[in-house]
């Protein structure tokens, strides 16, 4: 179980950027294009701060 959680963590961590891109792009259907644009800017700012 622990190994599975660890592997899932690695999987999500390694692919965090493309997964976030899919969420932001598909999320447009829920919250519209302006919020997606805002999320892109905020996410970029966060990553620039911590990475």
């Amino acid at each position, binding site marked *: 179980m622990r*190994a*599975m959680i660890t*592997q899932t963590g*690695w*999987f999500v*961590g*390694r*692919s*965090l*950027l*493309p*997964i*976030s*891109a*899919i969420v*932001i*792009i*598909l999320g*447009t*259907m829920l919250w*519209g*294009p*302006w919020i*997606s*644009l*805002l*999320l*892109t800017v905020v996410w*970029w700012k966060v*990553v*620039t*701060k*911590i*990475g």
Partner: protein
Amino acid sequence: MSQASTYKMGKKRLLAHPQDIHCIAYHIFCLIAYGCAFWLWLNPELAKIETVWDRVAFVGGAAYMLGWISGVDVGVNFHNHTHRRVFRSKNWNKWFGRIWTFSGGWPSFFWNHSHVVVHHANVMRDNDWTLPKKKADGSFESIYSYVFFHWPWRYAVHLYQDFTSGRGGRHVGRTALKEFAIFLAMWSVPFFIDWKMALCLWVLPQWIGNAVTMGSGMYVQHAGGMPKSKDRPMSHSTTYLSKFFNLTMFNIGYHIEHHDYPHVHWSELPAFHEKMKPKLIESGAHVVPYGYYKAAAIVAQISKQGSGYEKFVNDQAPGFAEEPVARTDERLAREGGSVEAGASLS
């Protein structure tokens, strides 16, 4: 079942290293992201796109995200494949490589040539045309010049010169032509679906990916560096220690280690870094506690207090800052002579 056991049992002949499943997953997620963006462009009512400005906002957000991940997908992810192929089969490597880079705006052969033949073999020397131009004092041109003028303009000129002069092998020109034709066949598909969509959600992201993401990454990897020498064997690159950065970027931050030992698998670089740490400290290597994103933000600063470039090249991670002098002085006193740098890692 763990990935390692899957690798050993069901797919034992597919992957060269079990961790390479992450490389493949990353690229597949990138293709899915492009597919989602295309689908919403073609069905604007689903994405609440009603006006021209809504469309502009959608393209702004989607193109930036797509460009960001495409730059990483080619510049970091496919990059790993150029050093250590991810599949065991030659054909799988060739064809997956072609499919890997077309969404980043590159024929795989061209990127492989730029990185392996030009950059890795000649890092920081004058014939490494992948890097920023150098000023008279050895520092790089501004990051803005590099981002706006290098890709695709300088790349195109240099690749043409290399392929017509035979740099990289006897049949390099012929291979380049064949690979370019295969690339064009795949790359042109979005234009047949909707040319406006192709410009906004295919060409624009690829410019962002190559010029902004990959361009700023290449810049900060080697800013402040110098060609390898006996006295400065590890000053050709900078190593980045941010855990978040290395987690999401396939450990590309361990760049000195990568350049000196390119065949060490990307997943093993953190452990390899620990092994190399004394050597890095001793040779006065440039090691910083953050990642490329923050580094690019620093070198892009234009302030009254001095340039961001100077600040960056003088930054040093804790634990790498004071020790080199102490260690060097200690050893000099002990040996009564000069420190001989560049000994190989045992």
